[in-house]
C-alpha cells in the first residue's frame, strides 16, 4: 500500500573493467540523490506526478546525464531536448521535442499536459508556449559540458563532418582538454 519508484539514467555499453571507481561512485551518488528527492515528495503524501517531475528535474540538472544540463549535442552544435510525462490516474500526457532554451524540459512537458489542449508540442512553438506559461528558460551555456562537446567533435571527425562553433557563452576550448573530458562515451544509447 506504500509508495514505490524506480529510476534510470540511461542504458548502453558499460565496462566494469574500465569504468573508474570515482565514476561509479559519482553515478551512484546521483541516483541516490534522485531517489531521495522522489522519496521526500512521496513521504509527504505527494502525488506520483509531482514525484516524477521532481525526480527528473534533479536528473536534468545533473551534468552526468544525457538530459537537460549535460545533454549531448546535435551535429550543428546545439542541444535539442525531448521529454514526456504521463499521469496514470487520468491517462493525460504531455510531450515536447526539439527544445533548446528550456531549463527543465520535463516541466515544459507537464505544462503542455496541464495547460494546453494538446499532448505534444515541438520546437519553437513549444518554447513559446513555455515562455507564455512561466516555464523557466536557460541559455545554451547552461546545458554545455566540455565532455559532451569533445564527444561531438570525435563523432563528427569519424564521420568526416565539420565541427561547428562552440555555443555562445561557454568560452574557448581549454588547453589542454582535461582527460576526464576526453573519455569515450560510457554508454552508447539514450
Amino acid at each position, binding site marked *: 500500500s506504500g509508495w514505490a519508484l524506480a529510476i534510470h539514467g540511461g*542504458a548502453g555499453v558499460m565496462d566494469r573493467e574500465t569504468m573508474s571507481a570515482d565514476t561509479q561512485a559519482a553515478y551512484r551518488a546521483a541516483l541516490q540523490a534522485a531517489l531521495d528527492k522522489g522519496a521526500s515528495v512521496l513521504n509527504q503524501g505527494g502525488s506520483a506526478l509531482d514525484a516524477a517531475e521532481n525526480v527528473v528535474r534533479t536528473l536534468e540538472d545533473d551534468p552526468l546525464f544525457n538530459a537537460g544540463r549535460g545533454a*549531448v549535442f546535435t551535429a550543428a552544435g546545439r542541444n535539442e531536448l525531448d521529454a514526456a510525462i504521463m499521469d496514470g490516474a487520468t491517462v493525460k500526457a504531455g510531450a515536447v521535442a526539439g527544445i533548446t532554451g528550456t531549463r527543465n524540459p520535463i516541466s515544459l512537458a507537464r505544462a503542455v499536459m496541464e495547460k494546453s489542449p494538446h499532448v505534444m508540442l515541438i520546437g519553437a512553438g513549444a518554447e513559446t508556449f513555455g515562455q507564455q506559461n512561466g516555464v523557466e528558460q536557460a541559455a545554451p551555456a547552461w546545458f554545455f559540458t566540455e565532455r559532451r562537446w569533445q564527444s561531438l567533435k570525435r563523432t563528427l571527425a569519424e564521420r568526416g563532418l565539420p565541427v561547428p562553433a562552440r555555443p555562445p557563452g561557454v568560452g574557448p576550448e581549454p588547453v589542454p582538454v582535461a582527460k576526464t573530458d576526453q573519455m569515450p562515451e560510457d554508454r552508447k544509447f539514450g
Partner: protein
Amino acid sequence: TVGVVVRDRAGHLAAATSTGGTTAKLWGRVGDVPIIGAGTYANDESCAVSATGTGEYFIRLGVAREICNLVTYKGLSLQQAADEVIQKRLTALGGDGGIIAVAPDGTLAWSFNTSGMYRARQSEGQAPVIGIFR
C-alpha cells in the same frame, strides 16, 4: 536519457522521461522518449514504463505500451512482460536498451539487454537498490 516511474500512496502511477537524444544527430531526429506508448507510458489500470535505448526500435515496437498490454491482456507479471519485450522482441529486432516499470500494486521491474543501465529503485520502508552493470 533519464526516467522515472512512480506509484504514490493513493495507488496512482506516473512515468516521466527526458533526453538529449544521440550525439551528432541530424535533421531534427527524435527518438522514443516523447512518443507516448514508446518511451513513456502510464495507466493506473496496467502499469507505468520509462525507457532508454535506441529510440527507433522502441518507437517501432511501442515498447512502453506493449509491456502494459501484455500485463493487461495476457496476464503476464510485470517482470515477465518487461522481459518478453526487451529480452526477446527488442533483441530479436536488433535494438538495444532497457526499461523501468511499476505495477498498480507497487511491484517494480527493470529489464535491459545492454551491458549496463544506470538504475535505482526503492519501495516505502525498504532500502534502496542501485545498480550500473548487468
